[in-house]
């Protein structure tokens, strides 16, 4: 097993403590830092996402894998060089006003980060105006809107409606999700995409920005 494969395996298993040492060893062996990031971490998180979708692993395993990747990225940063831009775009994500649920939104943040996005987490109970304000940043490519409750679906509708009036609307995609949300509802309220889980959200978001 190569060092990069070893890193990928440890990311998948969520071994956060072991990752920084393995990254240093890989660098010392002459591995390309960008390859370590892409194959050892981002690809590993894709595998984690696929296993999650197949119910082979569950939310805690996904969380510890994301945490391991974060440790790996921290260890890798000094080796990537100051001009190395590893972000594929900025995403802002939040749970709509009136809804305090955060686990789905947090998973989406983690998977978007793992897919290479720079993520701004707006938190829970977020007013629609706050989404609009965040989306005004010209770097933003994805706006993720979450709602877990049927009672907060109207807040999602209002939020998306406001985002759709943004002057820079053509610059970002609006993605929605949450337990009561469906593709039909997403289309009805004018969102660009609905995904059933965090892993597929990251895949679709990545496809939006990379074409």
């Amino acid at each position, binding site marked *: 097993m190569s060092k990069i494969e070893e890193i990928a395996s440890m990311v998948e298993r969520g071994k956060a403590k072991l990752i920084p040492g393995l990254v240093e060893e890989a660098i010392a062996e002459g591995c390309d830092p960008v390859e370590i990031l892409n194959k050892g971490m981002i690809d590993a998180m894709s595998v984690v996402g696929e296993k999650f979708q197949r119910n082979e*692993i569950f939310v805690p395993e996904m969380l510890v894998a994301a945490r391991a990747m974060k440790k790996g990225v921290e260890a890798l940063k000094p080796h990537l060089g100051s001009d190395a831009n590893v972000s594929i775009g900025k995403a802002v994500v939040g749970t709509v006003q*009136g809804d*305090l649920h955060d686990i789905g939104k947090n998973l989406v943040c983690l998977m978007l980060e793992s897919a290479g996005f720079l993520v701004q987490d707006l938190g829970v109970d977020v007013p629609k105006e706050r989404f609009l304000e965040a989306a005004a940043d010209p770097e933003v490519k994805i706006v993720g809107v979450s709602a877990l409750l049927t*009672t907060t679906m109207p807040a999602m509708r209002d939020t998306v409606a406001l985002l759709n009036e943004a002057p820079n609307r053509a610059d970002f995609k609006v993605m929605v999700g949450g337990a009561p949300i469906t593709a039909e509802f997403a289309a009805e309220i004018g969102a660009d995409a609905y995904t059933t889980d965090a892993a597929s959200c990251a895949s679709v978001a990545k496809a939006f920005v990379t074409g």
Partner: protein
Amino acid sequence: MERIPFRKEELEITAPPLLTGRLGVPVLNTPITPRENCLMFLRGEEPLWMPFFSDTLSLTPAVDPDNVARGFVFDATGFNPVESGGGPDKFGVIWEYVPSVGGSMVRPGSPKVPDITEWEEYITFPDIDSWDWAGSAEKNRKLIEQDIFLRGTTILTGLFERLISFCDMDEALIAMVDEDEQEAVHRLFSRLADFYPKLIRKFREYYNIDIVTFHDDWGSQRAPLLSLDTVREMIVPYLRKISDAAHEMGIYFELHSCGKNEMLVPAMIEAGVDMWNGQPMNDKKMLAEKYGDQIIIGADLPALPEGASDQEIREACQSFIDTFNSYRTYGGRARGVPGAREILYEYSRIAKCGRAV
């Protein structure tokens, strides 16, 4: 027990609801009381009808601060959750009541326990002996002494949910699998497994309960939050201790666990759970077939469209009884379906005992 056939007169109302509010139902002219029927069912005997959610009168009095914090006080005091729900639970965690949801949540972001490995520094277990149990029971005397409905209570925040309330969802989930944190979770759950039986004993002593419902959500809309292995390792030993204690007191043990938790049913059985009250996204028929000899599965009436006709409601009820009558299941709440309780009762009575000529 004689298989008394159904007579139309059984649908006559003999008394108004004992409990005001959304959980109260009128008393029907049943040949035996719902409580007697439920106890037969729980003992493994064939009941005269499929027991329903509404056959239990579950009291969650304000004497337990959790019930106030969660906006879930159901007793004789006429509690208004919008006015009085929320606030500190019995461990001092602050909950926010959300009227549109009809329940409470802990706002994430500033957990009471910032590091689960040091939870003992932040958590003090409540002294439940100091609570006014006698005063609470006095307020509810008539409801406690009734023997029409099964007498129950609900412990609203179980093991995993308690962990979440202490350290937020993400950290709770990680702590369940992270080997550096699991030991602390074991310590916490071990303490809770000592604590909850004391709480159940108070409800036995002052509220004379037949059944306790233990509220611990383990799933999301699409799948369990935790793997079967994790539940077996981290929850089952402690839940078993609590259910064993309840059983020793002569109290049945029901688990309320939201989410698509089909694959966790083996863990529920190992934990000594008598009944699981799960959500409709679970395949109840499959579960009843597969595990019905080991655990009672709660089955929900299929959702009906708003404004469903009487005929549609009757057909849905008949289909429900046809599907589940032969299994050891009980009927969940027929939310927002007018008359469904009475129709289900009638069809179930006929399915089990026939109709009087």
